[in-house]
């Protein structure tokens, strides 16, 4: 390390650094996020506690009346349930499937590079376009899915996939899982690559089986990465708009509406910006509660691990 030819700065940098450096370092990011996200958030809070005209002009302060109206709406509970089903299914499915995929892609095998690129491909297409292409493929009459299934002899009649919620919602969930896999796989691959070799050598010398290596070495070490994948996925999927909107627009009869699609209708079709703002805050609070609970649980687990 003495090989560095460095110039030391005149001021005692450590002392200076300890007090103001961190704040200077985070200043740009704080500034950007505060304005671009904080200001609209404030706007939202304002709109949710006032009566608002169709075009965003605030009329009168009405406290929490918007929230009360919103929760009393018959569609609210349905959307809540569907949003939860959507989020849990997509995130659960994606994380559970991504782990074995990442494990496989981490091994050396013939054509691994091609396999990696293929699995990542859904990421290259925007969600809107993915929705459009699948909607076209799922068309009851001229869709390739029906045509292929028909040719394979799996079905005898074309299925109208997107006509009712019973088939449309599971299809949307399946596609949601498909597009979430690349992200989770990337995170897990990164985690797997950071695992040190020595502990595996040691374990193997001690005679540990592959399963034991997995359960007691890999899994705990991957926990921070699993956490990242879970939490971020939940947030993105909960708020995910394009897929469901493009495929069914939340219909028929609101049966595939989740919070965010209903929100869009409230804001831009019906012009009820106050209800939409209230709904946004409800969604925000739900996510906040989730992340705090999860963080608390995760921290408790980490401290258990550390103590071991």
């Amino acid at each position, binding site marked *: 390390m003495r090989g560095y030819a460095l110039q030391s700065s005149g001021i005692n940098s450590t002392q200076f650094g300890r007090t103001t450096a961190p704040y200077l370092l985070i200043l740009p990011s704080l500034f950007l996020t505060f304005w671009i996200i904080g200001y609209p958030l404030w706007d939202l809070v304002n709109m949710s506690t006032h009566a608002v005209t169709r*075009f965003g002009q605030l009329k009168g302060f009405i406290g929490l009346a918007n929230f009360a109206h919103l929760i009393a709406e018959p569609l609210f509970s349905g959307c809540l349930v569907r949003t939860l089903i959507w989020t849990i299914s997509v995130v659960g499915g994606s994380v559970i499937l991504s782990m074995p995929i990442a494990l496989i892609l981490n091994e050396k095998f013939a054509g691994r590079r091609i396999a990696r690129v293929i699995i990542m491909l859904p990421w290259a297409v925007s969600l809107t376009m993915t929705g459009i292409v699948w909607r076209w493929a799922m068309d*009851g009459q001229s869709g390739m899915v029906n045509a292929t299934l028909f040719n394979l002899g799996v079905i005898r009649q074309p299925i109208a*996939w997107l*006509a009712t919620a019973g088939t449309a919602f599971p299809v949307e969930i399946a596609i949601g899982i498909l597009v979430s896999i690349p992200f989770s796989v990337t995170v897990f691959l990164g985690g797997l690559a950071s695992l040190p070799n020595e502990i595996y050598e040691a374990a193997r010398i001690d005679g540990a089986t592959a399963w034991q290596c997995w359960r007691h070495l890999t899994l705990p070490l991957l926990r921070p990465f699993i956490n990242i994948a879970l939490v971020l996925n939940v947030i993105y999927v909960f708020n995910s708009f394009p897929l469901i909107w493009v495929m069914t627009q939340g*219909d028929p009869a609101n049966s595939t509406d989740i919070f965010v699609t209903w929100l869009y*209708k409230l804001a831009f079709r*019906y012009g009820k910006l106050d209800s939409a703002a209230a709904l946004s805050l409800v969604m925000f609070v739900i996510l906040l509660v989730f992340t705090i609970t999860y963080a608390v649980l995760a921290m408790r687990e980490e401290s258990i691990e550390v103590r071991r």
Partner: protein
Amino acid sequence: MRKALGILLGTATMAFAIASAEAKTQLRVVVAYYSAATQEIFEGMAKDFSATHPDVDVKIEVVPWDNLEQRLTTDIAGGIAPDIAMIGTRWLVDFVKNDVAEPLDSYLTPEFKARFLENFLGPSTISGKLYGLPVAASARAMYYNKDLLAKAGIKDPPENWDTLVADAKKIKALGNDIYGFALQGKEIETDAYWYYSLWTHGGELIEGTKSGIASPAAVAALSLYRSLIDEGLTEPNPTGYNRQDIERLFKQGRIGMILTGPWLRGQIKTDAPNLNYGIAPIPAGTTKATYGVTDSMMLFKSSQQEKVAWQFLSEAAFSPKWRIEFTTKEGFLPVTKAEAEQPQFTNDPQLKAFTDMLPYAHFAPLIPNWEQIADTTIRALQKVYTGEAKPEAALKEAAGSIDSILQQQ
């Protein structure tokens, strides 16, 4: 040194350019997308206008219909509304109610007003004041596949619903992938597709101050559609088909009859040139009816150059030259007398089928929150189409919701 000089020069040039650009008046016009020709047409108007008004720079923004409402909402909320916008006339009430639209009566000259066909000024007149100039008008009619009808042994297209049901049965018998009557069950204008039935059965959307969609006529109208689905006379699972989907089925030659507007003609010409089809009035029930739709050009109250904007409208956008260009290229019905006199319109038998229906046209009621009401109706229709609810119950529930929306004003 050279770099600094370069930057300085660059900034100076930019500043000069901005300054000189600011000397011109900028007119912002937001237009909806109808086809690939829309942008050209409006750019053409802009060019013509700038030729006679060199101090005005006209900026045309073309927006897809799906996003138009959202775009205008955000623009107005952000304080940068355009000067002129094209809107669905059914939205006009909300704009007027929120004091966004500028009444046009003070700008109208009798000569200008006389250019228009009477019917079309009505829908954009609210409380006696004119707020929008009609720009794209359509009435709806029934397209029928001549080959399929001939194969099924039907001589003339059905004139009423009973005959239609009988004809659809005959067409259905022609084959597995052939359907008698197209029924739209998804997305925008799903409600309109049902209004054809509603109005021809004598029903009305608004009766007095309450919703009319739970009336006996309405229930009969919806039960008719339900029975069509039950007997397999429509394409299967209508809730999976939006307007484009059923139009596509018709272009593929797999549907006998479909109710839609004049734009399908242009599409058939490019997508299915060999399709042998005809156009007839919408089948009557107890009465004849059709759906008249107009889009309007609206002037914004917040505009800083209302006079210039009006000049653009009266001299360019609504000049006979451009009206004819627009209506011909986009395939709509004439709204001005100049268009109606053009040979392509007077000698077109198909267009005649549309214009003949105009006297029976119903327009969307001019009430605020129309989108929400339409959505409520669509929800009820979809429940019935999927079999989740029965017509009477679904319509009653929807009418109740609509009544409370109506009372909110």
